[in-house]
Protein backbone atom coordinates (compact mmCIF):
# COMPACT_ATOMS: atom_id res chain seq x y z
CA UNK A 1 0.00 0.00 0.00
CA UNK A 2 1.40 3.39 -0.91
CA UNK A 3 1.66 6.18 1.61
CA UNK A 4 -0.82 8.62 0.13
CA UNK A 5 1.18 11.66 1.27
CA UNK A 6 4.00 10.57 -0.95
CA UNK A 7 1.84 11.22 -3.97
CA UNK A 8 0.49 14.56 -2.89
CA UNK A 9 1.18 17.28 -5.39
CA UNK A 10 -0.46 20.36 -6.74
CA UNK A 11 -0.87 21.76 -10.20
CA UNK A 12 2.22 23.77 -11.22
CA UNK A 13 4.33 21.98 -8.65
CA UNK A 14 6.75 19.62 -10.39
CA UNK A 15 6.86 16.27 -8.73
CA UNK A 16 9.61 13.73 -8.64
CA UNK A 17 8.72 10.26 -7.60
CA UNK A 18 10.68 7.08 -7.40
CA UNK A 19 8.63 3.99 -6.96
CA UNK A 20 9.17 0.32 -7.00
CA UNK A 21 7.68 -0.83 -10.22
CA UNK A 22 4.64 -2.81 -9.24
CA UNK A 23 1.64 -2.53 -11.52
CA UNK A 24 -0.55 -1.69 -8.55
CA UNK A 25 1.53 1.32 -7.50
CA UNK A 26 1.75 2.56 -11.05
CA UNK A 27 -1.99 2.24 -11.59
CA UNK A 28 -2.53 4.34 -8.48
CA UNK A 29 -0.14 6.99 -9.76
CA UNK A 30 -1.83 7.11 -13.16
CA UNK A 31 -5.21 7.58 -11.49
CA UNK A 32 -3.85 10.43 -9.37
CA UNK A 33 -2.39 12.18 -12.40
CA UNK A 34 -5.64 11.81 -14.34
CA UNK A 35 -7.61 13.15 -11.41
CA UNK A 36 -5.42 16.23 -11.27
CA UNK A 37 -5.82 16.79 -14.98
CA UNK A 38 -9.59 16.49 -14.62
CA UNK A 39 -9.46 19.13 -11.90
CA UNK A 40 -8.13 21.64 -14.42
CA UNK A 41 -10.93 20.77 -16.83
CA UNK A 42 -9.00 19.46 -19.79
CA UNK A 43 -11.15 18.01 -22.54
CA UNK A 44 -12.04 14.32 -22.70
CA UNK A 45 -10.07 13.66 -25.88
CA UNK A 46 -6.87 15.03 -24.36
CA UNK A 47 -7.48 13.07 -21.18
CA UNK A 48 -7.95 9.88 -23.21
CA UNK A 49 -4.70 10.52 -25.10
CA UNK A 50 -2.74 11.16 -21.90
CA UNK A 51 -4.19 8.11 -20.14
CA UNK A 52 -3.34 5.90 -23.11
CA UNK A 53 0.21 7.23 -23.42
CA UNK A 54 0.84 6.93 -19.69
CA UNK A 55 -0.34 3.33 -19.66
CA UNK A 56 1.66 2.44 -22.77
CA UNK A 57 4.83 4.07 -21.42
CA UNK A 58 4.50 2.44 -18.00
CA UNK A 59 3.81 -0.98 -19.50
CA UNK A 60 6.96 -0.59 -21.59
CA UNK A 61 8.96 0.46 -18.54
CA UNK A 62 7.76 -2.45 -16.41
CA UNK A 63 7.61 -5.17 -19.02
CA UNK A 64 10.48 -4.35 -21.37
CA UNK A 65 12.67 -2.11 -19.24
CA UNK A 66 12.41 -3.79 -15.86
CA UNK A 67 11.62 -7.25 -17.28
CA UNK A 68 8.56 -7.54 -15.02
CA UNK A 69 10.75 -7.33 -11.92
CA UNK A 70 8.54 -5.42 -9.48
CA UNK A 71 11.53 -4.92 -7.19
CA UNK A 72 13.25 -2.62 -9.67
CA UNK A 73 12.50 1.10 -9.44
CA UNK A 74 10.82 3.36 -11.95
CA UNK A 75 11.74 7.05 -11.67
CA UNK A 76 9.08 9.54 -12.57
CA UNK A 77 9.15 13.30 -12.90
CA UNK A 78 6.08 15.19 -13.96
CA UNK A 79 4.50 18.60 -13.96
CA UNK A 80 1.09 19.95 -14.82
CA UNK A 81 0.38 23.51 -15.80
CA UNK A 82 -2.41 25.12 -17.75
CA UNK A 83 -0.09 25.07 -20.73
CA UNK A 84 1.16 21.51 -20.70
CA UNK A 85 1.49 18.17 -19.04
CA UNK A 86 5.03 16.81 -19.01
CA UNK A 87 6.28 13.51 -17.69
CA UNK A 88 9.53 11.56 -17.75
CA UNK A 89 9.58 7.87 -16.97
CA UNK A 90 12.88 6.10 -16.43
CA UNK A 91 13.16 2.37 -15.92
CA UNK A 92 16.12 0.38 -14.65
CA UNK A 93 16.76 -1.42 -17.90
CA UNK A 94 19.48 -1.23 -20.49
CA UNK A 95 17.38 0.86 -22.83
CA UNK A 96 16.28 0.41 -26.41
CA UNK A 97 16.50 2.18 -29.73
CA UNK A 98 12.98 3.33 -30.54
CA UNK A 99 14.06 3.99 -34.13
CA UNK A 100 14.51 0.26 -34.63
CA UNK A 101 10.90 -0.58 -33.85
CA UNK A 102 9.21 -1.57 -37.11
CA UNK A 103 6.46 0.73 -38.33
CA UNK A 104 3.24 -1.09 -37.36
CA UNK A 105 1.21 0.78 -39.97
CA UNK A 106 2.88 -0.64 -43.06
CA UNK A 107 0.93 -3.44 -44.72
CA UNK A 108 3.39 -6.21 -43.94
CA UNK A 109 3.22 -5.40 -40.21
CA UNK A 110 -0.53 -4.98 -39.78
CA UNK A 111 -1.03 -8.57 -38.67
CA UNK A 112 1.75 -8.31 -36.11
CA UNK A 113 0.77 -7.84 -32.51
CA UNK A 114 3.69 -5.70 -31.30
CA UNK A 115 4.92 -2.16 -31.83
CA UNK A 116 1.73 -0.13 -31.62
CA UNK A 117 2.34 1.21 -28.11
CA UNK A 118 5.41 3.27 -29.02
CA UNK A 119 3.75 4.36 -32.26
CA UNK A 120 0.64 5.60 -30.42
CA UNK A 121 2.73 7.54 -27.92
CA UNK A 122 4.60 9.30 -30.71
CA UNK A 123 1.34 10.04 -32.49
CA UNK A 124 -0.77 11.23 -29.59
CA UNK A 125 1.74 13.22 -27.57
CA UNK A 126 2.96 16.60 -28.81
CA UNK A 127 6.60 16.02 -27.91
CA UNK A 128 8.36 12.72 -27.28
CA UNK A 129 12.04 12.20 -26.61
CA UNK A 130 14.31 9.51 -25.20
CA UNK A 131 17.59 9.75 -23.35
CA UNK A 132 20.71 8.40 -25.04
CA UNK A 133 20.44 5.01 -23.32
CA UNK A 134 16.83 4.64 -24.31
CA UNK A 135 15.53 3.82 -20.84
CA UNK A 136 13.92 7.19 -20.19
CA UNK A 137 11.03 8.67 -22.12
CA UNK A 138 9.86 12.25 -21.82
CA UNK A 139 6.39 13.10 -23.11
CA UNK A 140 4.66 16.45 -23.38
CA UNK A 141 1.01 17.11 -24.15
CA UNK A 142 -0.05 20.68 -24.74
CA UNK A 143 -3.15 21.54 -22.77
CA UNK A 144 -4.11 24.97 -24.08
CA UNK A 145 -2.76 28.42 -23.51
CA UNK A 146 -1.04 29.69 -26.60
CA UNK A 147 -0.57 26.28 -28.17
CA UNK A 148 -2.75 25.56 -31.17
CA UNK A 149 -3.99 22.01 -31.64
CA UNK A 150 -1.15 20.08 -33.20
CA UNK A 151 -1.91 17.82 -36.13
CA UNK A 152 0.96 15.89 -34.82
CA UNK A 153 2.57 13.28 -36.11
CA UNK A 154 6.15 12.53 -35.87
Amino acid at each position, binding site marked *: MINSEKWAFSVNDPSVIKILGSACEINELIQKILKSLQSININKTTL*FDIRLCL*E*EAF*VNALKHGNKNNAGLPVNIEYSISEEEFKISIKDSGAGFNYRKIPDPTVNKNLLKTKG*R*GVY*LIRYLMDEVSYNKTGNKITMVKYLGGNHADKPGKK
Partner: protein
Amino acid sequence: MQINQAKNKDILIYYIKGDVDINTSPDMRKNFDTVANRQEKKIIINLSGVSYIDSSGLATLVEMLKKVRKYGGKLKLSSLADKVKSLFEITKLEKLFEIYDNEEVAVSEFDKQ
Protein backbone atom coordinates in the same frame (compact mmCIF):
# COMPACT_ATOMS: atom_id res chain seq x y z
CA MET B 1 -14.87 -6.35 -18.57
CA GLN B 2 -18.05 -8.16 -19.52
CA ILE B 3 -18.45 -10.39 -22.54
CA ASN B 4 -21.77 -11.65 -23.84
CA GLN B 5 -22.67 -13.66 -26.90
CA ALA B 6 -25.83 -13.87 -28.92
CA LYS B 7 -26.87 -15.45 -32.18
CA ASN B 8 -28.49 -13.64 -35.06
CA LYS B 9 -29.35 -16.44 -37.50
CA ASP B 10 -25.95 -18.01 -38.20
CA ILE B 11 -24.00 -14.97 -37.08
CA LEU B 12 -22.37 -14.85 -33.65
CA ILE B 13 -22.57 -11.41 -32.06
CA TYR B 14 -19.79 -10.98 -29.50
CA TYR B 15 -20.48 -8.08 -27.14
CA ILE B 16 -17.63 -6.53 -25.19
CA LYS B 17 -18.28 -4.04 -22.42
CA GLY B 18 -15.62 -2.18 -20.45
CA ASP B 19 -12.01 -1.20 -20.99
CA VAL B 20 -9.95 -3.44 -23.26
CA ASP B 21 -6.40 -2.98 -21.99
CA ILE B 22 -3.33 -4.77 -20.66
CA ASN B 23 -5.32 -5.96 -17.64
CA THR B 24 -8.44 -7.22 -19.41
CA SER B 25 -7.30 -8.27 -22.88
CA PRO B 26 -5.91 -11.63 -21.66
CA ASP B 27 -9.42 -12.51 -20.42
CA MET B 28 -10.87 -11.52 -23.76
CA ARG B 29 -8.32 -13.66 -25.54
CA LYS B 30 -9.12 -16.66 -23.34
CA ASN B 31 -12.86 -16.19 -23.71
CA PHE B 32 -12.63 -15.88 -27.47
CA ASP B 33 -10.80 -19.20 -27.65
CA THR B 34 -14.13 -20.90 -26.93
CA VAL B 35 -15.58 -19.17 -30.00
CA ALA B 36 -12.62 -20.11 -32.16
CA ASN B 37 -12.76 -23.71 -30.93
CA ARG B 38 -16.37 -23.91 -32.15
CA GLN B 39 -15.14 -22.51 -35.49
CA GLU B 40 -17.90 -19.94 -35.73
CA LYS B 41 -17.87 -18.88 -39.37
CA LYS B 42 -19.51 -15.46 -39.03
CA ILE B 43 -18.66 -13.20 -36.11
CA ILE B 44 -19.47 -9.59 -35.33
CA ILE B 45 -17.62 -8.04 -32.41
CA ASN B 46 -19.87 -5.29 -31.09
CA LEU B 47 -17.70 -2.72 -29.30
CA SER B 48 -20.46 -0.29 -28.33
CA GLY B 49 -19.65 -0.92 -24.66
CA VAL B 50 -15.96 -0.08 -25.06
CA SER B 51 -14.82 3.47 -24.43
CA TYR B 52 -11.13 2.71 -23.94
CA ILE B 53 -8.68 0.39 -25.67
CA ASP B 54 -4.89 0.29 -25.63
CA SER B 55 -2.29 -1.35 -27.85
CA SER B 56 -2.67 -4.70 -26.08
CA GLY B 57 -6.40 -4.57 -26.78
CA LEU B 58 -5.73 -3.83 -30.43
CA ALA B 59 -3.20 -6.68 -30.52
CA THR B 60 -5.73 -9.09 -29.03
CA LEU B 61 -8.31 -8.14 -31.66
CA VAL B 62 -5.69 -8.79 -34.35
CA GLU B 63 -4.99 -12.22 -32.82
CA MET B 64 -8.72 -12.95 -32.79
CA LEU B 65 -8.99 -12.01 -36.45
CA LYS B 66 -6.06 -14.24 -37.34
CA LYS B 67 -7.59 -17.20 -35.49
CA VAL B 68 -10.90 -16.81 -37.30
CA ARG B 69 -9.28 -16.43 -40.70
CA LYS B 70 -7.21 -19.56 -40.07
CA TYR B 71 -10.30 -21.76 -40.11
CA GLY B 72 -11.95 -19.82 -42.93
CA GLY B 73 -14.27 -17.69 -40.84
CA LYS B 74 -15.05 -13.97 -41.13
CA LEU B 75 -14.97 -11.37 -38.39
CA LYS B 76 -16.35 -7.85 -38.49
CA LEU B 77 -16.30 -5.03 -35.94
CA SER B 78 -19.26 -2.80 -35.20
CA SER B 79 -20.32 0.18 -33.13
CA LEU B 80 -16.94 1.67 -32.31
CA ALA B 81 -16.87 4.84 -30.22
CA ASP B 82 -15.23 7.75 -32.03
CA LYS B 83 -12.06 7.69 -29.98
CA VAL B 84 -11.72 3.90 -30.29
CA LYS B 85 -12.29 4.14 -34.04
CA SER B 86 -9.62 6.84 -34.25
CA LEU B 87 -7.06 4.42 -32.82
CA PHE B 88 -7.85 1.97 -35.61
CA GLU B 89 -7.33 4.77 -38.10
CA ILE B 90 -4.09 6.00 -36.52
CA THR B 91 -2.62 2.48 -36.53
CA LYS B 92 -4.09 1.74 -39.98
CA LEU B 93 -5.95 -1.25 -38.59
CA GLU B 94 -9.00 -0.04 -40.46
CA LYS B 95 -7.26 -1.58 -43.50
CA LEU B 96 -7.28 -4.96 -41.78
CA PHE B 97 -10.71 -5.01 -40.17
CA GLU B 98 -14.15 -4.51 -41.68
CA ILE B 99 -15.64 -1.85 -39.43
CA TYR B 100 -19.30 -0.86 -39.42
CA ASP B 101 -21.15 1.92 -37.67
CA ASN B 102 -23.65 -0.42 -36.11
CA GLU B 103 -24.49 -4.08 -35.70
CA GLU B 104 -27.42 -3.99 -38.11
CA VAL B 105 -25.28 -2.85 -41.02
CA ALA B 106 -22.65 -5.47 -40.19
CA VAL B 107 -25.33 -8.18 -40.16
CA SER B 108 -26.70 -7.02 -43.51
CA GLU B 109 -23.20 -7.13 -44.97
CA PHE B 110 -22.93 -10.78 -43.94
CA ASP B 111 -26.32 -11.41 -45.58
CA LYS B 112 -25.02 -9.95 -48.84
CA GLN B 113 -21.94 -12.18 -48.87
